[in-house]
């Protein structure tokens, strides 16, 4: 597909700055709107003391509910987009994405298995989600690298998604009513669970791994050139692959454990950014992270506003945007190949 090697159309720095400003604005909008709207002008007052009487509820909503959620959507969006970029370079395939390849559903299957079988607490569920994502990534890699081009990976993704959803299906049948309500959360995805205590561990963990990915841009560029070329450039490909797969699973696994399956961010964002900036990973990676954060922040805002005071699962919102985009991508690829 031509999008992989598309040439740069815009200078990277202005684009990055624009994205960053847009993210800040989106963050402010997300902090001020919701079931209760808080005027922008009140934000500083609510955040930094001098609260007027009657502000207590607004302050609670802003500080304890919205802020951790907005920050979480920023981290999660960046993580999903960055793992999309990494996998696309790793598999040398523009369609690689945690959801499509089955990593997210592998993680969901692991989580659901833990919920139904063990009755274990959060850490049992999260580690099972991680194990599931690791296994799915490994399988996708093994099968996907046997075939040239898109087919192998997509077929592997279909197989993994089928296995994962049948595991989830069987467990749904076994689950009691109380467990069922937890399962829908994993399958549809939600940021409702985001609070300060979750953010306190998943935030630093994810940011650390994202920083690691950022400095890997040379390897990712080399991978794009092809195996032999990368080897000539002095990279030990087998080791690089193993490392990048592990890092992707380490990012996606715990994230899915907290948010459930949020699809398509990892596919849509890198594609759009690549159209604008080209495939140079030095810029593609950071720009995708910021754009992913922006997209997920807006998606979460939409999920909170559309049916307010109720909420939509965020996975629904991203799939509504992502599904048609994916379709368009496939149509476009076909015409380009002719």
């Amino acid at each position, binding site marked *: 597909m031509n999008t992989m090697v598309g040439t740069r159309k815009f200078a990277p720095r202005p684009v990055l700055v624009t994205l960053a400003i847009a993210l800040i604005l989106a963050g402010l909008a997300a902090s001020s709107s919701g079931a*209760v709207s808080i005027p922008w002008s009140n934000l500083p007052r609510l955040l930094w003391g001098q609260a007027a009487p009657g502000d207590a509820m607004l302050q609670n909503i802003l500080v304890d509910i919205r802020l951790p959620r907005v920050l979480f959507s920023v981290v999660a969006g960046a993580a999903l987009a960055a793992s999309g970029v990494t996998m696309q370079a790793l598999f040398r395939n523009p369609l690689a994405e945690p959801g499509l390849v089955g990593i997210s559903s592998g993680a969901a299957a692991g989580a659901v298995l833990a919920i139904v079988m063990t009755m274990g607490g959060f850490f049992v569920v999260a580690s099972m989600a991680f194990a599931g994502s690791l296994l799915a990534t490994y399988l996708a890699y093994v099968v996907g690298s046997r075939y040239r081009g898109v087919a192998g990976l997509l077929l592997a993704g279909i197989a993994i998604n089928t296995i994962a959803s049948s595991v989830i299906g069987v467990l749904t049948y076994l689950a009691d009513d109380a467990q069922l309500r937890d399962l829908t959360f994993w399958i549809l995805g939600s940021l409702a669970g985001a609070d300060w205590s979750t953010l306190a561990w998943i935030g630093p963990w994810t940011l650390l791994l994202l920083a690691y990915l950022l400095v890997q841009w040379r390897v990712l560029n080399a991978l794009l050139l092809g195996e032999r070329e990368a080897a000539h450039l002095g990279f030990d490909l087998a080791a690089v692959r193993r490392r990048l797969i592990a890092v992707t699973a380490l990012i996606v696994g715990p994230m899915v454990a907290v948010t459930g399956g949020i699809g398509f961010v990892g596919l849509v964002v890198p594609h759009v950014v690549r159209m604008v900036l080209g495939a140079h990973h030095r810029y593609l990676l950071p720009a995708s992270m910021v754009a992913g954060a922006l997209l997920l922040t807006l998606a979460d805002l939409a999920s909170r506003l559309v049916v307010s005071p109720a909420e939509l699962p965020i996975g629904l919102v991203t799939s509504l945007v992502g599904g048609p985009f994916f379709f368009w991508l496939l149509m476009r690829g076909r015409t380009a190949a002719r």
Partner: protein
Amino acid sequence: MKRYWLALCLCGLMGAQAACAAQRVVSLGGSVTEIIYELGQGGRLVADDESSVYPEAATRLPRVGYYRTVPLEGVVAMRPDLVLASRNAGPPKTLERLRGLGVELVSVSDSPSIDSLYERIGQISGQLGVGQMGDALIQRIRGEVASAQALPATQRRALVPINRSGPFLGAGGGTAADAVLALAGLKNALAEQKGYKQVSAEGLVTLAPDMIIVSSASVKASGGMDKILAQAGVASTPAAREGRVVALDDLLILGVGPRVGQAIRSLKEAAR
């Protein structure tokens, strides 16, 4: 406004001011909402959830989603001074955080049994400061149940299939339907099964129920009673042969609510 003053007067009479202060109540769970209205306190509700479908007035209130996936901010936004939540409401973490934010949240008994119904009425009426009305309601239901249970029981094997969209789901042990059948002196043909599971046409024939009770919504979803009788498997059951396939209001058969006495009576009449 009228109701407000009425409530205020009641509060003054009973002197239970702390409980009576609650004028902005959010209800989470249809079985809770139903009782609040039954106690005549519906006017104090500012929001409920998607599962609150009875009475009709409950469906016109703002909805904070489904009671099992409660949105934190949505509830806080209603500025409730009391949240009455079914014990099945959740997720637990959200309820915990609601309490952490200083929202008065009271968890109310909600399992499919008549004891739970009495407990629920007691808890809700206590929280709303209308304890005497609660006691009166419990007495009324006890009376209705006792007189309905005094009617002769048949011990027939009954099956309760529900149809939302597609195949029948049979109500097994631990469901509200199972509890209502037991109260009416009927045997659940699916007592061994836990919860709601799909019943095949062959399964229907093997189970050979003497009586089939379908909820009125299921009749509607199936496209009428004729369609149900024409379904594969149904015609071969003793229930169909003996003309004991009956429709019952959803609230009567799929929950143990304030009209449980009426449910028992209807079932016993249909079983004869």
